[in-house]
């Protein structure tokens, strides 16, 4: 069974690891969920920017934009494309995470796999996030020398 790549507005590039995980045959969808966009305060200017980006992506890869509630549309699309898994770029956004939870409740047999992006820095321990410079003091070495040169 093929995979279905579900994109959200935080990972709009074809070089994201989610595409390598899905392989060249994976269909790709973006759900234009107007309620979620409104709840997330996504104004019309940002909507235009996102849509332009999706339109350009669709020129070089099979990518469809579907309107509707994510938890209703995505399981239907997965069934239509005979997908056994949905691959989604991981996101810290609670709105995206809530939709993942809603899909799992709506379609418990559908496997959803979150794919991490390439990291900006690697650190041995969880950094102190209390203030930026506590984090930066730990992250700086990796940030400036990502290959450990």
């Amino acid at each position, binding site marked *: 069974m093929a995979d279905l790549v579900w994109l959200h507005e935080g990972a709009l*590039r074809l070089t994201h690891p989610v595409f390598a995980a899905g392989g060249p045959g994976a269909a790709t969808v973006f759900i234009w969920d*107007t309620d979620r966009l409104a709840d997330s305060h996504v104004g019309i*200017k940002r909507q235009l920017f996102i849509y332009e980006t999706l339109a*350009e992506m669709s020129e070089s890869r099979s990518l469809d934009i579907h309107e509707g509630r994510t938890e209703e549309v995505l399981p239907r699309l997965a069934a239509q494309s005979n997908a056994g898994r949905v691959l989604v770029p991981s996101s810290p956004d609670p709105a995206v995470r809530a939709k993942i939870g809603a899909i799992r409740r709506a379609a418990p047999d559908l496997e959803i796999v979150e794919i991490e992006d390439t990291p900006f820095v690697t650190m041995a321990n969880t950094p102190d996030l209390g203030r930026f410079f506590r984090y930066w003091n730990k992250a700086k070495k990796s940030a400036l020398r990502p290959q450990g040169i």
Partner: protein
Amino acid sequence: MNETIPLPTKFADRAAMLAHLRALSGHDDAASAIPDIAAGGRTAAEAVLARIDPRAYAATRNHLDGAVTRLSPYIRHGILSLDEVRNAALASVSDPKQAEKFIQELAWRDYWQRIYLAHPERIWSDVESYKTGFDAAEYDAELPADIAAGETGVACIDQFIATLFETGYLHNHARMYLASYTVHWRRVSWQAGARFFLEHLVDADPASNNLSWQWIASTFSNKPYIFNLENVAKYCGPDINTIPRHNLVLDQSYERLSELLFPYMGGPHG
């Protein structure tokens, strides 16, 4: 089972795409102006990335006409990864130290995103108490109509709001001025201001945006951020109106502003 029909992706021009989006969102006011926002897509992103100059950025980034990159909408939407932007910056300099300030600013985004994942409740709630002498309940929960309309009567503030409306973008310094004016001069909750920015900024990200508002407000920093007209004049150049009589409430020394804006700082009141 109904076959789901995808939405169109080909339009004659930006106006047609915008009309389509307005219809989808139920705001079918097609007569509205077409915003002058950054072009979406990877092609535009790569063109912007090719122009970055980390050394000039470090020297001039605080000025409105400085060598800022305008990468933020592309990074926020993952069109460019932080990793590849950092690598491009390092490739453009002979010594990594020349790109350190630029990469540190990329790290701010990584930092905000880590907080977003680890502490999502901090995005809309005060991380700490206000350090202004006022309680959170003393800040208005709603954005005043004159700020929402860009008609405050403070010339430079109204210019920043007009730019926000027209372009979906503000230089970081202008964001700081506008946020500080909203929270500290008008005593409006940072949440109301953060919603205003989220609705208009093309690079709007709840973590970067809201935690930055908290930094201004002092609920995620050690003191409130304020500015004065002299500072605006120093960083904004001649395109921004800094004539004193058009910006009266900003035309004070920092010492006097602290007295006016935070009369109870240093002691309890009420």
